[in-house]
């Protein structure tokens, strides 16, 4: 059995401080993500819907003028390179690159933060679980806390968790320049022209359109439930009410789906969304695409060299 190189013992208060900080961050993220949508005057009714996925598509930037097909293809390839990184150093570099892309694309900080907080809870668990579960190898540094002799935190586990978190953050940040910089139907048409099946493209388009309608319906139903005193409690009655609510939502969504399909048939729909859109890739678009792919490849090669060397 190999032995760790070093064991550091820290006071228990450090651990408590860490957990307090972690729990506060998680609570903040959950509150920001799960809070009731704020009302807005721009949408009918007392509640607003979700922010549109392509709400920054009207502005101008390098990403906005880039041919959507090449943009989708090269940024997805770049993301694959980022996923393959192993070291925290290069994953952090990918985060910096993604941040620069977000700034260039003019994506509002609020939208970026909202996306990041949505992932925070899930990713945060890596930071808690991995230091405790990574097998101890030769050369690992372990951290112990006073009064807790049975808990041993492996620093390598912390670093691995941080690498996963930074990679996820880098890719999540890249989704802004990828999706927010063209009208969503154009992005879907770009996917279609890259060979993604028509059915998947239609599902994406209809989901994007009706998610706002369903959210509006959910808000109205929730308001009506609150108006009759419904509050979430940990009892059977709450579970039954939530079950009824979800059942009703499903029935209404199903009925809506049938009506929409009928309306499409009545306007000559035969199975494919018609389009007169055509894409034209210019030299500039090819150069930008090549640059992103090369950037991803360089990160990947350096990471491999760093990791193995």
């Amino acid at each position: 059995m190999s032995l760790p190189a070093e064991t550091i013992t820290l006071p228990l208060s450090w651990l408590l401080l860490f957990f307090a900080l972690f729990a506060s961050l998680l609570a903040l993220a959950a509150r920001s993500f799960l809070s009731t949508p704020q009302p807005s005057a721009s949408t009918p009714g007392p509640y607003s819907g979700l922010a549109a996925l392509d709400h920054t598509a009207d502005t101008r930037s390098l990403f906005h003028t880039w041919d959507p097909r090449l943009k989708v293809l090269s940024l997805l390839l770049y993301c694959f390179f980022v996923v393959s990184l192993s070291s925290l150093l290069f994953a952090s570099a990918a985060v910096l690159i993604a941040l620069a892309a977000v700034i260039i694309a003019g994506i509002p900080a609020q939208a970026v933060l909202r996306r990041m907080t949505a992932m925070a809870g899930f990713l945060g668990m890596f930071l808690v679980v991995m230091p405790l579960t990574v097998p101890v190898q030769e050369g690992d540094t372990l951290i112990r806390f006073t009064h807790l002799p049975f808990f041993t935190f492996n620093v390598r586990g912390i670093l691995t968790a941080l690498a996963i978190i930074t990679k996820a953050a880098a890719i999540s940040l890249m989704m802004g320049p990828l999706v927010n910089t063209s009208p969503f139907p154009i992005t879907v048409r770009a996917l279609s022209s890259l060979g993604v099946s028509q059915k998947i493209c239609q599902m994406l388009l209809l989901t994007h359109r009706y998610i706002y309608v369903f959210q509006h319906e959910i808000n109205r139903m929730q308001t009506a439930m609150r108006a009759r005193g419904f509050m979430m409690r940990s009892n059977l009655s709450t579970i039954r009410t939530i079950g009824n609510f979800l059942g009703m939502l499903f029935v209404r969504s199903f009925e809506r789906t049938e009506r929409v399909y009928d309306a499409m048939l009545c306007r000559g729909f035969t199975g494919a969304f018609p389009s007169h859109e055509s894409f034209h890739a210019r030299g500039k678009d090819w150069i930008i695409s090549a640059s992103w792919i090369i950037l991803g490849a360089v990160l990947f090669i350096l990471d491999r060299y760093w990791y193995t060397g």
Partner: protein
Amino acid sequence: MHELAGFTRHEQKAPPLFKTKALSFQYPDGRQALQGIDLAIYPGDRVALAGVNGSGKSTLAKHLIGLLSPTSGDCFYKERPLSGDTLTHVRREVGILFQDPDDHLFCNTIYDDIAFGPMNLGCGPKEVKRRVEKALSDVDLEKLAYRQPHTLSLGQKKRAAFAAVIAMQPDVLILDEPTANLDPKQKVIFQKLLQRFSGTLICISHFLPFVHSLCKRAVVMAEGRIHHDFSLNELIAHQEALREHGLDHTFRFNCCGSGDHHHHTDHSHPKSPRAPLNKKSTQHDRASLIRMRNYSFEYPDRSQALHTIDITIHHGESVAIVGENGAGKTTLASCLMGILRGRGEYLFQGNPVSDSLRKRLWQHIGMVFQDSSDQIFCPSCEEEVRFGPEQMQLEKEEIKKRLEDSLRLTGLKGYEKRVPLHLSGGERKRLAIAAAYSMLPPLLILDEPTANLDPESEKLLISILNDLDITKIVISHDMSFIAHCCERTLVMDQGRIVKDSKTAEFLGDNQLVSLNMLDYTYKNICAHG
């Protein structure tokens, strides 16, 4: 049951556009929606398809365009059975507008939605652009061409959906309740749009004054059968038939009301509105239930929804709030309910509405939403009505008593085990009132209570509301309904209360037509010219 189709049918020599022979249809759950329908619609016909909620009008329309197939009988378009190639053909030539515009607007911009039909017809880019621009101009939505549908108001969505239909340049238009939930101004816009359409028109509506200016022929349906097929003027003149089919609107007309004599369009303002005055006390000796002073509400995007609202509502009062779509009526109701929180003074029963009182307001204020489906989520009527009292943690005996009282008051006795989703629009509305009333709130707020109701259901609703001896706030565009149910009327415009008067004075105001850009007399116009 009276004799079916007991009046002379129209005789036409041209071959019919649509023809049905003994058409019957049964839904998979066993509900018989249509029975033995024999109908012929000729080119150029302008037909009002009338009948109470659930009479089979929309189901018949779906058969005419081939969205449903008959269980028995036949349906023909231009003398060819509706199947195979004829289906493609009929959908190219017949445009149908459903009740809910969100069903039509499935693309990500209004432009794409309108272009969808012409592109499916195989039109080239230039022709598609021309048709889209023409349709947008017809409905006056050019400036919103690239907006996403979910950001539009209901009136704008309705017009956008209509533009999507007319961009296909159909020969025939089938409209299912085209003016449902629209304010009077939007209704007039829609009426003018339809008057310009020169093709065959089939308009499903139970509001005869609207279809009177558009249609010449009336087909009346009841319980899945055609009961009458004659001219619209004949139908309107036949009070007995109107009453029998729940289409009698004469109770709405303040000029004469009884319906026993001819109406006059220029008598649309009531000389003596029949708003009920409180039976027990006058306004002066009532304590105030709600008091708002200098109350404002601002959305996070800084747009002001309510401006310095000053109102006092007394116990037992029935107050109407009127105004254009987007005037702030529903926002005000949401603030009263405590769902939204604005700035300023708000007293309920003399107590300032603090955070803790705001959380308990649901026990004191009942709300009936515009779309009853929003507030119905239980599997049976009984559970639906019991829900509120159960949340109040009342004794079982008290809950049972309230359930019985509420169902009896709303005429739903015997509906305990019925599934709310299977009820008609009017029944659902009454169930929503029963659910709110079972909590015995001192104040009941009703948002557009008459939306989509047939005259019979509306009449019943008026009688139920007048029997409720509690404070009521009614948000409505329907002047007749207000005249029957409310003693005081507040007019809202751009978040402000611009007029606060007795309903009698409000309805007698000669400036009413131009006030707030709304034609308030719209629903009050007698159909008899």
